[in-house]
Each structure stands twice: as C-alpha cells, then as structure tokens.
C-alpha cells in the first residue's frame, strides 16, 4: 500500500472535494473559498458565457440536512431581489449527488479586508447604511439574516455593498422556506414546486458567530428571535467599522473578535476620539435587552443618517449647550455670512460717521 505524504494528503482531500460538473452547463475555473457547509467555486456558465459563483455542499447527500439548508438558503435569497443582496441564478444536484446553487460572481473584497481602503469615517458610515438597507429589505420580507459580520459583507470595486451568506437565515412565519428537494439535474429555480413551510431550525440550536450574536441568539432562544437580533449584529458591525484600525494596529484582531458579543463594553472602553453620538448608536443597537435596542433596522439607519447630516440622534440625548453648538456647526456658513454682513455694515456705519 502506498504511503501518502502530507502534501499528497492535502491534494487528495482537495481533489475529493472538487464538485463533479460533468454533463452540466458549468466548467470549473477555481476555488474561491470554503465554509462550514461546503465550498464556493468560480465556474463558467458555458450556456451564457459568463462566470458565476457556485456554492456546493461537501456531502453527496441530497436528502440530508446540509442539502436542505443550502436549498433553503438559495430560495430565501431568490425571494430577496435587492441591489445589496447577491442574486441566485440556478439550483440543483450535481452528478456526484451534491446540492448546489449558482449566484452572481462578486468581484470584491470582504469588509474586513476592505476596511483599510475607506478613507474617511463618513465613507464607512455610508457603507454601513447600505448594509442596513439590504437587511431592512430582508426584514420587510420576514427574513432574518442571523450571521451578520464583516466576513459576510462584500464591497465591490465600485463601492457597492452586498450582504452574503444567508445560510443561517430564519424566515419568520415560514414565508419562503421549503423542504422540497432539488432536481437531480440543474433546473431553473422557477421550475421548482411551490414552497411549503418547514421549521428547520430547532429550538435551542445555537447558530451564529460569537461576537456578533445577540445574547438571546447565543442562548439558543430561536423562537424568540426577531429583527432586533440582526440589529444587535449591526451594532457590532458598526463597532467594527468605528474601531477597526485600533484592532488592526494592535495586531491582535480578526474581524470576528472585534465585536463585543453579549457583554457590552463600558463607555470608557471605546476610543476617546470616537464621536459620542456614534458610540451611543452602537451601544443602543447592542443593548443586552432587546427591548432597549432599536426596534428595527430602519431606526438604526435613520440615526446614522441624522449623524451624517449633523442632526441629533435618538440614541444620544443632548444638553442645551451641545444642541446649540450643533446648531452653530450645522449653520456655520449662514452664521459666518451674517456676521460678515454685520461687520461690514458696522464698518460702513463708522466710516460714514467720521
């Protein structure tokens, strides 16, 4: 029997994982990444002559739980047609009996890898707003993401922001979940049977990423989850955007552990240079008790918009002096013009009085 070197072992492992695309319209180009459920590959759609991303589970088990999760993910995304959510093109079962779906190939970087390329705080906040828009759209369609984190946000070459990896999503009221199996060969999504509800995620099963999971999600209270669980994750994401360079500078951080998890940091733990209003927004979003968070993503996004426009934010009650100073800052152009006018009129008055 032949001995296999470590390199050969790794190559065989990778070879065994390569999806079998024989007889399909897809041709393998290369591997893009690996996740908990399976791999993502860059493939060429030979029929349409374009490159797409193919996500495939790692087990040849079209009837198993992983296949059901992938299929559910594809169908959830298919319901969410939004510029901030990557569109699904196709779903089916490969000849090696592995379930797959294809989606638009996003040429960009993950948010945690792109962070250094944001030149200013407003840039980061505008990217965050676009994440909020996509998540709010999903919530409007009764879909919770449940795994929002920098690794699941892609930033495209033109600044477009896409929310990825809906594998842990939860559909409230079972609006677009299904237990139907995919076809044995690739089929259009539209050719599938009408979806039927399936409460796949059992109560008590903890799904998510530590650091970005709301406390109730970390406790496995699946039935109690609502939009505010995603609000918490968005708060952690906002914290990542606000504090990323401290983390990067310390050389200790990955994107995942820059979130704060269920333990809210003391106000002093935030860098002094950060605007208090933004810290307050993130803290409100990450409140331990869901009742103390923003009631929805739109309210969170509105506070960010107010901050960018120099308006008061709901999360940070201001005193009269602060409010007056904010008014001055916001109207400084008019104030300067009026003061200049007054000064000029005064000079003219005194000059004529001589």
């Amino acid at each position, binding site marked *: 029997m*032949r*001995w296999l*070197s470590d390199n050969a*072992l790794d190559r065989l492992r990778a070879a065994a994982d390569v999806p*079998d695309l*024989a007889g399909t319209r897809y041709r393998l180009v290369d591997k893009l990444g690996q996740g908990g*459920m399976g791999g993502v590959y860059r493939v060429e759609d030979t029929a349409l002559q374009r490159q797409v991303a193919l996500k495939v589970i790692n087990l040849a088990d079209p009837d198993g739980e992983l296949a059901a999760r992938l299929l559910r993910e594809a169908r959830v995304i298919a319901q969410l047609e939004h510029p901030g959510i990557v569109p699904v093109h196709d779903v089916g079962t490969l000849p090696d009996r592995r379930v797959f779906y294809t989606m638009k190939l996003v040429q960009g970087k993950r948010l945690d890898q792109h962070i250094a390329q944001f030149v200013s705080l407003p840039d980061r906040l505008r990217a965050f707003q676009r994440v909020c828009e996509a998540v709010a759209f999903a919530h409007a369609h009764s879909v919770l993401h449940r795994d929002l984190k920098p690794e699941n946000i892609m930033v495209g070459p033109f600044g477009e922001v896409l929310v990825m990896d809906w594998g842990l999503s939860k559909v409230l009221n079972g609006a677009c979940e299904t237990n139907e199996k995919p076809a044995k060969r690739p089929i259009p999504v539209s050719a599938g049977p009408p979806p039927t509800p399936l409460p796949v995620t059992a109560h008590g099963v903890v799904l998510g990423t530590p650091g970005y999971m709301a406390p109730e999600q970390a406790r496995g209270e699946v039935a109690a989850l609502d939009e505010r669980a995603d609000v918490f994750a968005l708060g952690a994401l906002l914290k990542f955007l606000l504090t990323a360079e401290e983390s990067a500078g310390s050389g200790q951080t990955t994107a995942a552990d820059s979130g704060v998890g269920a333990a809210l940091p003391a106000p002093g733990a935030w860098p002094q240079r950060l605007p208090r209003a933004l810290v307050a927004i993130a803290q409100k979003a990450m409140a331990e008790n869901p009742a103390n968070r923003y009631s929805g993503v739109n309210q969170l996004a509105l506070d960010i918009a107010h901050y960018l426009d120099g308006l008061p934010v709901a999360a940070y009650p201001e005193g009269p002096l602060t409010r007056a100073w904010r008014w001055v800052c916001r109207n400084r152009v008019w104030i300067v013009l009026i003061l200049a006018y007054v000064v000029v009129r005064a000079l003219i008055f005194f000059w004529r009085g001589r």
Partner: protein
Amino acid sequence: MPDDTNMGGASPRFPQTRWSLLVAARSDRPGERHRALDALIAAYWKPVYKYIRLRWNKSNDDAKDLTQEFFTRVLEKDFLASYDPARARLRTFLRTCVDGLVINQEKASHRLKRGGDIQMLALDYETAEGELAQIEIPAPETMDDFFAREWARSLFSLAVERLRQECEARGKQTHFLLLELYDIEEGGKQLTYEQVARQFHIKATDVTNYLAWARREFRRIVLDQLRQMTASEDEFRREARALLGVDVP
C-alpha cells in the same frame, strides 16, 4: 507493491451493507467477523502504532508489542461490544482504548511477554517506522490531531489502492495514472493538460474528463469506506466533514 499486512492491508474487502462493518465485527459468524476486523485493522493499525510510538514515547519493540496486544483485544468478540456510538466516534473510542492499554501496561510495570499468549498479526512495522521518519514529530499537545491525521492517511491510502485495483479491473489505468500524477506525486500540478495529453497520447479534453472521473471515484470510495468505518449517520457526517477538511458546523 508489498502488502503491509496479511490482515487485509492491500486488499480490504468491505461488506456491502451500510454500517455493516461494525455490525459484522460483532457477528457470531467467524468468516464475517474476520472480514470486518481485517478491514478495521487495515485502516487503524498504522495510526495506532505511530500514536503509541510518539504519544507514549515507546521504543520500536514496545510499540510493536502494544499494537499487537491492542489488536488482539480488538479481535476478541466482546471488545467492540463495549463501544457505544452515542458516546464517541469509533476513532476516539479506539484511541482512548489504546491510551488505557498503555497506562495499564505502565502500571503493571512489567514488559509484555513478546509472543507469549498474544495472537501475532503480521503487520509491517518496518514500513510504519520508515513512514514515521518522513513526518514531522508533532508537539505533545497535538497528539489527538496527529492520530486523526494518521487515520486519514491510512484511509486515503486504502482508498487509493482500491481505486487502482478498480481502475485496472475496468481497463481505466490512464484515469488512475492521471490522478496519481496530479494529486499524489509532487510537481504534477505544474503540468498543463496539453502536456499531459501528449504524454498519454490522449486529447486534452480527455484529461479533464478522466481526471474528474478518477476524483469522483476516489471520493466515492473514501466515503464508502468511511460509511462502513462509522457506526451512525451522525458520526459518518462528522467524520466526512473532518476528513474533507470542513469544520463541523
């Protein structure tokens, strides 16, 4: 190609039924038991031997004795009866039993009598020693990972051998040679499909198809073996994910 063991090393015959290996290993029918244990020993003896050598820092001779002793116990009918799939993976169970055997042996504080009442299995320890010399000695705290990796190496080696035999039987030697070239030998990946096609006197598209076929068959054999080496659907899935390099979600 030399056999590593006459207990099924180079030509393991796996029972056809799902989960049948562990069931067969507990069977009352000697032939069925023997075949199942052949396959089990073929997959596990090298990892066990290497683990005893490195984890317990045993000499070559002591490790041989302990390996013999361990698999002699495995061959006893009641040994696998104590395995509860709900509590641990088979791999973990066997490793724990190895640990227990070595600890007991050390407590007894006497050397095992080589060739005494131990049933001798013909295992090729020289090959295993040669393989040990080619790998990096793992840190003590990573011995569990080392055992898992050696087990994966053993399973993949058996799968490669079985693929070679199946390819020969079906007249698809080129398919196997391509897999060997690209995925086993060093430097094969640097060759283009056109270069390989010229070398084998086939079309470049055939290289793609043959390689895809061989990889698919290799994957099938690995999963087939794994399915028979595990005791439950859950264990199979977890092991498959671990073996294919994917974390358990």
